[in-house]
């Protein structure tokens, strides 16, 4: 019985403590990315101007990854974002946005439009 209690209580407590210690590290946060995407990207990419309409299901997971990693499409937009919103998007913000788009892409487990 003692072994069971030990395994059932002390081990998870240890793991949770470890988790708490490591929780402060940098991670992709798709929820934050969703807010940023709607606030800073969709202002142009919503069909109101000539910029193409973009929402997560517009592209596949790989296409979104390429968009952020292999082309300069995102970099081109950054000055306009700063100009319009006075917000300077840092690398972590872009990772958050990318994770939101990838996790809700057309071929993801949870495809999403900007309305959900």
């Amino acid at each position, binding site marked *: 019985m003692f072994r*069971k209690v030990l*395994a059932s209580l002390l081990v998870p407590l240890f793991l949770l403590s470890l988790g708490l210690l*490591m*929780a402060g590290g940098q991670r992709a946060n798709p929820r934050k990315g969703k807010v940023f995407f709607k606030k800073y990207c969709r202002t142009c990419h919503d069909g109101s101007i000539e910029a193409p309409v973009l929402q997560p299901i517009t592209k596949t997971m790989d296409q979104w990854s390429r968009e952020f990693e292999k082309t300069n499409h995102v970099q081109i937009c950054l000055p306009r974002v700063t100009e319009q919103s006075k917000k300077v998007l840092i690398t972590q913000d872009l990772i958050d946005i990318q994770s939101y788009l*990838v996790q809700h*892409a057309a071929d993801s487990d949870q495809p999403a439009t900007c309305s959900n």
Partner: protein
Amino acid sequence: MKNAKGFRTWTLVTILTGLFLALFSPGFAGDGDGEKGDKKDLEERIEKLERKVAQDRLKITGDLRVTLDNIDATMAGRFNGLALQKGIVDTLFFLGATGAFPSRPDDVGQYIAANYGDYLFFQNNLTFDNLKQSFGSFPAEAQGALFNMLLPNTWVPEQDYQNETLYTTRLRLNLRADVMENLSFNGRLTMYKTWGDSTGVQVFNGAPNSFTLDGTNAGTPNSDIVRVDRAYFSWKKLAGSKWYLSIGRRPSTYGPPYHIRDNELRQGTPNGHVVNYQFDGITLGYNLNHWLPGNTFRLCYGVGFESGFGSGDQLKAPADRLSDTQLGGINWDIYNTDEMNIQMTAFGAWNVTDGFNGLVVLPADPLSGNSINAPVVLRYTPSANLGDMYLMDILLERHEMNFSWFLSYAYTQSQPNPVTTPFGGMFSDPFETPEDQSGSSIYAGIRMPLGNSSHVGLEYNHGSEYWFNFSQGADDIIGSKLATRGDVFEAYWIHGFNKGLGRARANLRLSAMYYDYEYSGSGWHVGAPKKLDEMPILAFPTYQDALDLRTSLVIKF
């Protein structure tokens, strides 16, 4: 020099000639014909793609999970209820034949051996009503004396139980088709088996997951049979309104917050604390997003037992025919965003029967208590409507910046009919009169990130003496942890093998789940719960405590 000049002249002529030919030759011209050719080629390629997309009417995804469970448990000491039942039946035979109570149990055994033909005749004509009537006619002192004589011989001391390696494989294929605008089909086919067994039926050991039932057979290891776990259509925006309709085999398993422990997206509609059970039914929902984010109100209806087909209803006298078990209630996502989910589920189950249609191998006759030596597959059909049941749950689920947590409270209330069967009545023993009972349960959990690709989590749930829910379809090997009358602690670590920033398509999960049972009958509405540390009378072996160490690998495709 002359040669050099001639070379330059020759070169110039060659270039000009080449340019002339290039500009005016049909295959190399930048004129309209070439553009038309490119456009035609492009259109043909797009048409092929469109045709292919139109023909792909079904989208198929799925997952394959392999698990290894290591179980270390203690079975509670008990008086064997089936042996006691046999003792009572045999004593009644002795009493009827001799007109006297036996002075000791051996007298009965010797008398039966000497008159075995009469004994078989007696057994064949025995009904539960006869048994109850005969036993009830005994004075209380006689009943006490009979129990005192029989009980000591039925004691089964506490036992250890270990299963060092139990492997299972689960294959799930998800189907989706967009039929037309706002109308879609969803399905899930599931195969779930232990390694080395594909019989499709288990020997009944007292646990709900040893019974092949409509509501549980896709959630408990069963066989290599591919079963229809889910199959329903959803029709959104009915007549342009915010109403939607969904009919079929429901997505009623692994609802919130059950998905958090598996690092999954929401898998089902009703709250997983009270419903983790396949059933067929109808949902009529209304979106109230304009009132609160994600607010969706659903009216749900389902059938738990159909009496009029397959159960030989027509063979029975009208008074003996059973009513269908009907399910109905509400599933209300009160507030549902990426950060928070507040959900309420409340429903009733009317005319609940003593078990549901299913396949089982019974090790003993519940009426006479005699062993059934040849393992015979039996289509079990309920014999009585035991009463009504009401369940409700309220859930708060939060996803903070770096961790997720939830708290859920559930309540159940029974309203039994004054009916019992050889297995008992609603929360009562066979020879008791059932009474209204209520039970409750709490379920709490937290999940934290551990590095970039892993999570750790801790969950706890507690169920009271009369706690009951419809979670028998959960794939916990020992038994649905959320049905436990007692305490369950679970700790887990999940490592996701991600591709880029997408959700993991492969997960390795290690978990330790410790059950500390306080009362018997977890997951059952039939029979009275017994406190396990008070030498209970139990028909089947029951876990006192159990530790399940599980390793699982899930591949999604």
